[in-house]
């Protein structure tokens, strides 16, 4: 026996030959993992609470790197009768999450024969946060940032975020991706404090989201001017979902563009 501590627990050289150190430093042998980076991506999702509801919007672009490859990707998913899930990030992972949510609804219908409409936004968000964190633990995350919009059990507006790390947070104004930098300050200008969402009217919220989408279209090179806009309101004991597709960013003015310098080739 070799009494040198360095050789403890190793196969003996006499029997097996020299230890192959490449086994311990197997960097070159890790399998290629094509799923661990996004391929086709969707950009920001924006959402804002107001007095008696929530507004959420996302454009229809699916980019392949910097190539604007698809302009017909729907990124707002309806779950049940009173919840909208907005997803940015990898589009194939989006489609997988969409399938999960549809399965969830089917199972819910099987056991909810009385039609209690039990699956609400907080439950959908909790479920998605478990899915996202579970995939993160497997070192195979779903490459998305998600915003869930709807109503709490007591019918107050519900808005909460979860991303590929499993991080969650809620706020009166939420945005994913580029929108978190560009749109959130604009939305926050309307209402600086979370508790004040009750001072915002539906109309103000609609305008603020539409304005933010326009600014994003000016500044975010992965965005498009075709978008989907969903507004959920709770009125007269009833939840109303206004879900509009194929909207166009209005009031565009590119006059500021001629003064831009510093991008691309040198200008006079």
């Amino acid at each position, binding site marked *: 026996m070799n009494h040198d501590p360095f050789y403890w627990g190793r196969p003996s050289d006499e029997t097996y030959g020299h230890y192959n150190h490449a086994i311990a430093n197997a960097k070159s042998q890790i399998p290629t993992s094509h799923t661990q980076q996004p391929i086709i991506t969707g950009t920001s999702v924006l959402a804002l609470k107001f007095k008696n509801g929530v507004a959420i919007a996302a454009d229809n672009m699916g980019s392949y790197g910097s190539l604007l490859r698809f302009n017909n990707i729907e990124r707002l998913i309806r779950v049940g009768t009173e919840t909208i899930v907005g997803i940015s990030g990898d589009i194939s992972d989006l489609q997988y999450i969409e399938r999960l949510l549809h399965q969830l609804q089917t199972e819910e219908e099987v056991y*909810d024969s009385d039609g209690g409409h*039990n699956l609400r936004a907080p*439950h959908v968000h909790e479920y998605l946060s478990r899915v996202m964190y579970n995939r993160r633990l497997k070192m195979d995350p779903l490459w998305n940032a998600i915003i869930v919009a709807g109503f709490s059990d007591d019918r107050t507006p519900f808005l909460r975020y979860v991303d590929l790390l499993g991080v969650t947070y809620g706020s009166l104004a939420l945005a994913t991706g580029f929108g978190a930098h560009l749109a959130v300050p604009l939305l926050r200008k309307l209402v600086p404090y979370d508790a004040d969402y009750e001072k915002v009217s539906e109309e103000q919220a609609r305008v603020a989201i539409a304005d933010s989408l326009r600014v994003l279209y000016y500044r975010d090179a992965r965005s498009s001017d075709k978008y989907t806009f969903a507004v959920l309101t709770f009125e007269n004991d009833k939840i109303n979902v206004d879900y509009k597709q194929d909207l166009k960013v209005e009031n565009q003015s590119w006059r500021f563009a001629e003064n831009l310098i510093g991008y691309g080739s040198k200008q006079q």
Partner: protein
Amino acid sequence: MFRNNYDNDSVTYSPTGRLFQVEYALEAIKQGSAAVGITSGSHVVLVALKRNAEELGSYQKKIIKVDDHMGIALAGLAPDARVLSNYLRKLAMNSKLVFNRPLLTSKAVLSIADKAQENTQLYGSRPYGVGLLVAGWDETGAHLYEFQPSGSVLEYNGAAIGARSQAARTYLERNLDAIRSCTEIEELVVHGLNALRDTLSQDMELTIQNTSVSFVGKDKDFTIHDNEDVQQWLDKLDSTSNDKNNANDDEDDDNDEPAEGTATAADSTQPELTQEGAAADDNMETD
């Protein structure tokens, strides 16, 4: 000796369209001691009669808590009930963890019904030999369900399972209006215990050892009372109604007349009671 050719397994129908193994499983429920459940719309009460296999032994537990808002009472094979209650607990935990919401009573009971139904259709399996009363409070209100090994599930305002439970059902039918209009848990428990007491044979009484009381409902977590905690309920029982061995049985203080005038109902239930009682004495493995 009479032999039945169609009860060797649970998947073969008899020519008359019956599944004998499933029917035998339903018989196993009747071997167990009685459990009674009633609901007022805002609360559900489960009460049950416990048995001890022998004088020196402990009493078999009859009421099992599933979650803060749900519990079950059992009649039949207690080990089968444990398996089902463990499954329910798993579902309840999963609902809390994954969806951050309490398990719906209807979903819980349909889930175990699905599990039980498989056993009536799979070769080589045995149907569960236990009946359950499932009590729960959720966002859709207070609910009481009866679960059977056949996989059937029905919602009830009042239900009784186990040995001599027909007597309890008779009490519940007579007092349905009073039970439904109960606003306090106390009244509901008294009705439950009255019904349970009707299932007892002549020489038995409700004691703190053999009685389990539980309730759940609005702003009230599922609570089980055993032993000393039951005394308060038995005290209420004696103050609101006469001893059951009294000649004039008028436990239902809201209508005295029918108590005497229901000889026909009593007659029709009597043979069944003695039969069930005798069967219960034979077999001590069911509770």
